[in-house]
């Protein structure tokens, strides 16, 4: 029982991080109908920028406070992501307005390649570390109930807390601010939003900026866990089934989907893996999403789209 709970909690923590990446997908899809394959590349780009700047800033300015150096690096990386978002809107999306989803998807694949190349050209392609001072030691919980207690990674808890607070912040942003309301209007109906004077292009830039910041935060967390390296791009591929499961247009869907996938992956690996040779984490989420698609193509919270001739 204790082991099961441990796996479950581990899954929930991992799931929170998937949700964070999935959130980036959902934001962009909601507001512009673009399925952003470049989210992984954005995570890599942002994490690389942050890792390198937090390394360079103490060298350049002589600040040796880790927190301040990280803060400045975070700010610079965020500004960089804004620039990237603006450039993407300006150079790519503006020219592809009203194209089919598949075309836009392929365009984001192109953006992904470009960003991967650019990020590694600018910041180097070694493995870098981001040290945001997260404690690495595990903590034990409930050791009165179970013998030995439940082992929980403190790092994971903090990461999940950051992810959760970002999600809350974003929902406040969406619900309470004028910009958030404009974003929701655009997500609902492009034409109607435009006709009441909401500038579509600006909304897209804002959304890509927000997605850039989300990418930066997920890159920061994953980067401090695993190190910043090229393989960071693959977490976008890990987060895809989450989006599918939750529904492409739903923020709560991304969160719940992430938790389901996280738990499902861990539990299946531990309890099912030994029977089929292990390593099933790679495809379990995908097959889960695939089976789910057959029954509910729009995802858990997605909007049902009815085609008419």
């Amino acid at each position, binding site marked *: 029982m204790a082991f099961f709970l441990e796996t479950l909690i581990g899954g929930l923590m991992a799931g929170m991080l998937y949700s964070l990446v999935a959130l980036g997908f959902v934001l962009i899809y909601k507001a512009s109908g673009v*399925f952003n394959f470049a989210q992984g590349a954005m995570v890599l780009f942002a994490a690389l920028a942050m890792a390198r700047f937090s390394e360079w800033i103490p060298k350049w300015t002589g600040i040796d406070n880790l927190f301040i150096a990280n803060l400045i690096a975070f700010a610079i990386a965020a500004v960089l992501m804004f620039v990237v978002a603006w450039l993407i809107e300006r*150079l*790519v999306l503006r*020219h*592809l307005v009203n*194209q*089919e*989803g*598949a*075309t836009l*998807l*392929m*365009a984001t*694949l*192109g*953006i*992904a*390649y*470009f*960003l*991967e*190349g*650019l990020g*590694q*050209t600018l910041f180097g*392609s070694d493995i870098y570390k981001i040290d945001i001072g997260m404690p690495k030691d595990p903590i034990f919980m409930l050791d009165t109930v179970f013998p030995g207690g439940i082992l929980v990674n403190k790092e994971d808890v903090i990461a999940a807390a950051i992810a959760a607070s970002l999600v809350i912040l974003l929902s406040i942003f969406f619900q309470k601010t004028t910009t958030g309301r404009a974003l929701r209007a655009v997500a609902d109906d492009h034409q109607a939003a435009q006709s009441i004077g909401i500038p579509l292009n600006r909304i897209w830039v804002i959304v890509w900026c927000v997605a850039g910041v989300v990418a930066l935060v997920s890159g920061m967390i994953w980067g401090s866990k695993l190190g910043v390296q090229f393989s960071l791009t693959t977490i976008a*591929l890990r987060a*895809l*089934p989450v*989006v*599918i499961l939750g529904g*492409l247009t739903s923020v709560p869907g991304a969160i719940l989907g992430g938790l389901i996938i996280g738990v499902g992956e861990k539990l299946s690996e531990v309890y099912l893996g030994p029977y*089929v*040779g*292990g*390593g*099933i984490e*790679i*495809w379990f989420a*995908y*097959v889960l*999403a*695939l089976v789910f*698609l*057959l029954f509910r*193509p729009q995802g858990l919270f997605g909007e049902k789209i009815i*085609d*008419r*001739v």
Partner: protein
Amino acid sequence: MLYRENGQFKTTYRADQQIFPITQDRVAIGLMLAFAFIAVPLMASDYLYASILIPLVIMSLAAIGVNILVGYCGQISLGSGAFMAVGAYGAYNFFVRIPGMPLIPTLILGGLCAMSFGILFGLPSLRVKGLYLAVATLAAQFFSDWMFLRIKWLTNDSASGSVSVTQLQVFGLPIQSPVSKYLFCLAVLVIVALLAKNLVRGAIGREWMAIRDMDVAAAVIGIRPMYAKLSAFAVSSFIIGMAGALWAFVHLGSWEPAAFSVEISFRLLFMVIIGGLGSIMGGFFGAAFIVVLPIALNRFLPAFMSLFGIEISTAGVSHAELMIFGGLIVWFLIVEPHGLARLWSMAKQKLRLWPFPH
């Protein structure tokens, strides 16, 4: 007026329906085939075979397969690498387990394995489309990556899924030298390309295109979406599977599951985008572009950059390659969504009017 079709009268339906109704086209294709089959083997070096010609021919084959699914039927697929892997390992299993198995039936059986895998993972396409389907096909990719790494039976109990084949021969002729490898792959490519061309301009190809352009409307005029989509998946994955078997057997010789990773899937999709969606010719152009570009960059980029006094490392070249690929994809999607094949047909159009511009 070099490419003029007036004066070429057709008096039978047969003559009107042939693949290349214009004489110049027939002559050009004949010359190209003669060049590929006769002139190239006379000139090429072993390096050229191993690094450009053989990969080019096999990737063209795979690109034709992907184009049938993505370009003609509009079912976006990121699982092409998986279909190649299934083709390769399927063919390997038949080749190793049945003594004296000839090569050509092995390739076809490998293609059939990929076909059944393709149909299985094409089933979601009946319910979902576009973006969701891309994810469904990615599932095929990750599943196959895992399958050939972990299920030992499929790889004949070899460690880490790496296997090899030797002593290939067709009709008693050994396929060992680069020339024979090239000619064999080229023969397969020409036959498949011809079949594919005929398929896409026939009834079934029109059904695919109708589904691509608007599936609901196609269903209304009596095209069965299930039949059309699954047949596209079947034909496409059969061709991709054969290409995978060729890639493994003829080009690599010994391989491991990583040879068919998701990277290959993306590359194949790029070939189709850059070459031209919905065009058999585009498969050749796209494959040529994607195969040759990295080699050309590796050769010339350091020299080019040193003109400006910039030293560029191997890693730098590969990053530049990523950036150029990415930039080109976006550029093609914006400026020329029909890819290089469209430029080709525009050139033909210009030749038709030459020397008068209008």
